[in-house]
Structure formats: structure tokens, C-alpha cells
């Protein structure tokens, strides 16, 4: 533990033990990723170490399988539609929330965030009860609507956070200089909150891309997304092709994480600059 003036031998030993313990926790955290990525390059067909050699055969399998490719295109399609719908609805709502009185904002905020708290299974069952008679089960539309419910809270949260930094006087200045509200929004407000909107969109995409429970209730065989395909794969018999799929998903996660981090830093720089 840092900050002590004198360290006895016991304290030094304790500090080492503490570091080793934390190191083990970090190993635990990254172990699944650290294991599944190398296994996807395995030349053999057993998911064990040591590997007999390296090869790209499981990636070949992945890209030759109509099932996996259909799942990829379903995931991207549903993810893109969800992102658009959630970002539009969430951003307008966040802009609206900022104009409301705090009490009202809190009540509506609780409703908007509720999908984060309610277990997805419950939302899934409810949505299934509603969509089944409307023929929205086994349909892309139903899946997109359900994913959007889960993605919206993230958009509202990130855009609200970026609005928090926004100085409303800028809008007043713009309109006093003759800008119409639409122009003032587009030229003054949008550039400031854009990183928040894009972060929200990335979160929305990631939420949809990772969502499985809704899919298990709503998707038919034609709407199978990547997580559903993986779920079925693990359930039946776990094949090395799954490790290739998993690795591709890890790469995508890293890309999303990096995007979010870059946007966060940009916003922070912006906020710092605005203060000085």
C-alpha cells in the first residue's frame, strides 16, 4: 500500500502478496480471451494445448459456412437498424430531457433507464407475448424493435452526459446573431455533442451485436444472429470453428472499445479547452 513513510519487512511482504493477488485477478480477467484466440489458429481439431501446429483452417471453415455467414449478416443488419433507431430516438429524447424541469426529468429518466435494470428474460417474455399475435416473432422487425429497447438507455445516457458539458449561452449567442434554431443546432450544438451521439451509437450497436436472450425468444431460423449461432454451437457440440468466430468478435470488441476511448478523450480535451 502506497504512501507509508517507513516500511517494515512485514509490510513489504504484505505489499508483494497484494500485488500477486491482484495479478492473479488480472490473469483471471483476461484468461478466456488469452486462451480462445490462440486456439482459433490451431491446426488440430481438439480444443486443447499444446497445439500440434498453426493454421487458418477454422477461419476457412467459418467463411465457407453459409450458417455462420448468414449469422454475420444478420448481426450486422439487425445491429445497424437498431443503431439508427436507438440513436435517433435516444438523441432527440436526451435533447428534450435537458429542457425539462429536474423532477420531470428524473421520473422520465427512470422509465428510460428501466430496460437496463429489468432482467432481459422478463422483457423478452413480455415482448414475446405481445409480438406473437402480431406476427412479429420470427421477423427482423421484431428483433430490431426489441434490441432497440435495450440499446436506448445507453444512447440517452451518453448524449445526456455530453449535453452536460454544453454551454446553453452558445445557442443564445447564435440566435442573437441571427441563426435560426435549426441552423444554431446544426452548427453550434451538434459539433459539441457529436462525440456523445457517436458513443451512444457505438454502445447501441454493441448492445444489439451482443444480445442473445431477445433473439432466443424472437428469432426464427432465418434471423439467427452470431450470439444465437454460438449458443447453438456450444449447446450441440463445441467445434473449433466457434473459436474462430469468437476471435473475430474479440477483434470487433477491441475496435469498438478503441472508438469509445478515442471519443471520450476527444470530449475531455474539448471540455478542458472550453474551460480555459
Amino acid at each position, binding site marked *: 500500500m502506497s504512501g507509508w513513510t517507513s516500511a517494515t519487512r512485514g509490510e513489504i511482504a504484505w505489499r508483494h502478496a497484494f500485488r500477486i493477488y491482484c495479478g492473479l485477478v488480472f490473469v483471471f480477467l483476461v484468461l478466456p480471451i488469452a486462451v480462445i484466440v490462440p486456439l482459433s489458429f490451431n491446426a488440430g481439431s481438439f480444443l486443447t494445448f499444446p497445439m500440434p501446429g498453426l493454421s487458418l483452417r477454422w477461419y476457412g471453415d467459418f467463411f465457407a459456412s453459409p450458417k455462420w455467414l448468414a449469422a454475420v449478416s444478420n448481426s450486422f443488419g439487425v445491429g445497424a437498424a437498431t443503431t439508427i433507431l436507438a440513436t435517433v430516438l435516444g438523441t432527440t429524447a436526451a435533447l*428534450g430531457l435537458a429542457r425539462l424541469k429536474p423532477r420531470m426529468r428524473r421520473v422520465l429518466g427512470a422509465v428510460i433507464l428501466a430496460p437496463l435494470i429489468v432482467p432481459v428474460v422478463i422483457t423478452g417474455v413480455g415482448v414475446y407475448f405481445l409480438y406473437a399475435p402480431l406476427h412479429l416473432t420470427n421477423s427482423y422487425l421484431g428483433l430490431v424493435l426489441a434490441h432497440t429497447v435495450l440499446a436506448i438507455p445507453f444512447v440517452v445516457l451518453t448524449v445526456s452526459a455530453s449535453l452536460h458539458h454544453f454551454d446553453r449561452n452558445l445557442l443564445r449567442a447564435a440566435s442573437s446573431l441571427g441563426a435560426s434554431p435549426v441552423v444554431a443546432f446544426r452548427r453550434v450544438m451538434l459539433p459539441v455533442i457529436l462525440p456523445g451521439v457517436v458513443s451512444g451509437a457505438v454502445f447501441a450497436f454493441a448492445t444489439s451485436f451482443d444480445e442473445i436472450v431477445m433473439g432466443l425468444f424472437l428469432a426464427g431460423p432465418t434471423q439467427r444472429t452470431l450470439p444465437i449461432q454460438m449458443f447453438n454451437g456450444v449447446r450441440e457440440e463445441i467445434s473449433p470453428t466457434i473459436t474462430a468466430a469468437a476471435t473475430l468478435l474479440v477483434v470487433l470488441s477491441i475496435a469498438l472499445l478503441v472508438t469509445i476511448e478515442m471519443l471520450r478523450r476527444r470530449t475531455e480535451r474539448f471540455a478542458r479547452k472550453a474551460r480555459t
Partner: protein
Amino acid sequence: MSSTVALALKASLRRIERRQALIGGALVAPLLLFLAVNFLLPIAMMLFRSVDDPDVRAIMPRTTAALAAWDGRDLPSATVTAMMIEELEAARGGADLSRAANRLNYDINGFRSLLLKTARNLPSARDGDMLQALVAIDHRWGEIETWAAIKRAAGPLTSFYLLGAVDLKQSGGGEVQGIAPDRAIFLKVLGRTLWIGFWVTVLCLMLGYPVAYLLATASSKTANLLMILVLLPFWTSLLVRTTAWVVLLQKDGPVNSVLYAAGLIDEPLRLIFNRVGVYVAITHVLLPFMILPLYSVMKGIGPTAMRAAVSLGAHPFLAFARVYLPQTVPGITAGTLLVFISAIGYYVTPALIGGADDQMLSYFIAFYTNETTNWGMAAALGCILLVITALLYAVYDKLAGRAAVGLT
């Protein structure tokens, strides 16, 4: 003069404020409408399904009404029996009969075939002892429990599913009693769900607290680097992580090979399709949810108080327990509640990594929805999970406040 100006100013200010609120409302409205249709309505439908019971009433409106007055001690009167035979005859061959038979089968296994068989073989003569005629078709008509099941299904609303979700049922006379021990599973499942949630939370706290402390006290360069190790799994697909744990924990998987190579075990440990696997995988998934709130609280705690305590002669451990730990309580509260709430709703991870005895409430909700289409039971179990989650969230909201959520 000046007061009129002030009044006019005030009025115009109020007008502007009202306009702002109106614009705000108009901007929020589409989202609220969307959530009302696709989130609130579904949840309301689920809650309603747990008490809705229209099926048996649909085919025997008079019999169910007559059974409401039945005391459940002796077999029903000849009038009621004759009434049921009549209504059963009218319903013969229709889809409604099949639905009613399914509903009764949820209560007593085999009731579906009993009802359908009876409907096929109804006595042609309508005089004499109708009850005896029914018993001649199937002896179960001579049992009180058979008639009690019809009474329980009389509708239009029922407590059957909600009571069933906590292993209770109503007798023919209306008093609530426990169901047969061999059919009582849901209290066990509920207890298991909370138990798994509890242990996952404890594990996350034990693993997460020191790591959060390390992150909060390390130099910002180290902390940033280590933070990636927390955020990477956080961002990795749940299915990827679950799949990876299936691979890691299997019989001849890497964990077992390492333990074997190190000479720690002689034969592979059983790590998957049991509770061990469930604890490991869920803890892994939820650990960042513990670390992040703890970290954000610890980041705001300066080292001064601890230093003061140590310099005043407190043993470092004592200083930690008395000075540092109490300051992190908000983070502990937020983290544990967040992890517990998430853990008890888990479905996919236990479904893939657990055995039959490790499935939680969510599994049964999905099972009754997708496999047996006993929607009433699915809804009742959903109600229980929803109530527990809502209560815990209310506690979270009270203790951790909305600051943690960021929408103030």
C-alpha cells in the same frame, strides 16, 4: 412603472420556460411512446398473464360457476356433473377443448388425456348417476382432486400460477396449502438463484476490491494500462466469454491440463456442468461491474486520512479498516447491488455451463415460454423475479443514488 416592466419580464420569462418545457416534452414523446409500446406494455402483459385464466371457463361457463360454491369436501353434486357432461359435449372436437385440456394438464399431469378421453366417450344416456357414468370412463373422476383442479381453473382470474411459483396451491375448499413435495421445485429454484447471486457477489467483492484499490492508487500510466485489462473482458461478447469458459473448464481443457502438469491433481476435476463452472463464469462476467463503481469511489479518496492514522500510531491494517474501508462503503453498496441484481437475472451462462441442478429462475421462465408454452407459469415466475429486482433496485437507488447512473 418599473413594477409593470418587472411583471412583463416575469410573464415573458414564464412564457419562455413553458415553451422550453413544451419543446422538451415534444422531443421526449417519440421515445416514451416507443417504450410504452415495446417495453411497458409487454411487462404489463406479462404481469396480467400470471393471473389470467380464461381457457376452462370458455368451454364450461356453467360448471365453473357452479363449482365456485362447492366446498371441496365431497364429490360434486349430480347437477354439476350433468352440467359438465353437457358442456363437454358441446365443446367436443373444438380447439377450445384442447386449450382447456392443456390448462388442466398444468395442474394435474395426465388431465389432458383424461378430459379428451372423457369427451370422446361421453355416456349417451342422460339419466341415472352421472358421476358413476364418469367414473366408469375413468376412475379419476371419483377423486376430489380432479374436481378441485377444475375449480382452480375456473377463472377469469386465478392465483394458481402465482401460488404455484412458490410451491403452493388451493385445495378444493379454497384453503392454501403446500403442493406435493415431489412436485415442489420453485422455492428450491428461487433459493438457488439467490444463493448463486450471493456467492457471485461475494466472489466479485473479494476479487474486485483489491484490484479497484490498486487501480485507484497506482500511477495514472499504470492505472490506464491495467484498466484495459478490466475493460477488454467488459467489452467482449458474453457468448465469447461463456464459450471460452466452456473450452477452459472442459474435462481435458487447459485448466485441467495445467493442474495435472503441475502435479496438483491425478485425474481431471469436474469443472463444468456443475456449480463450480457457474460461479467461475458468472463471476468473470460481472467482475467489471464491481471494479468500476469501487474504482470511481476510491479515486475520490485522498491518501491523507490514512497517512494521518498511521502517523498517529495506528497499525496499517487498523488504519485501513477504520479509516479507508468506511469511505468506500458507497462503492461497495453500488457494486454489490449491481452485481447481485445482474446475477439473479442470468440465463445464458448457467444454461451453457451449468448442469440440471444449476439452472436459475430465468431458465425456467424461458423454458415455460418456449418449450412447454405454459405462459401463465412463465409469467408468474417472471413476476417473482421482477419484484425481487425492483425491490433491490429501490434499495440501490436509495443508497447509491442516481449519481451512479448519471441522469440527474
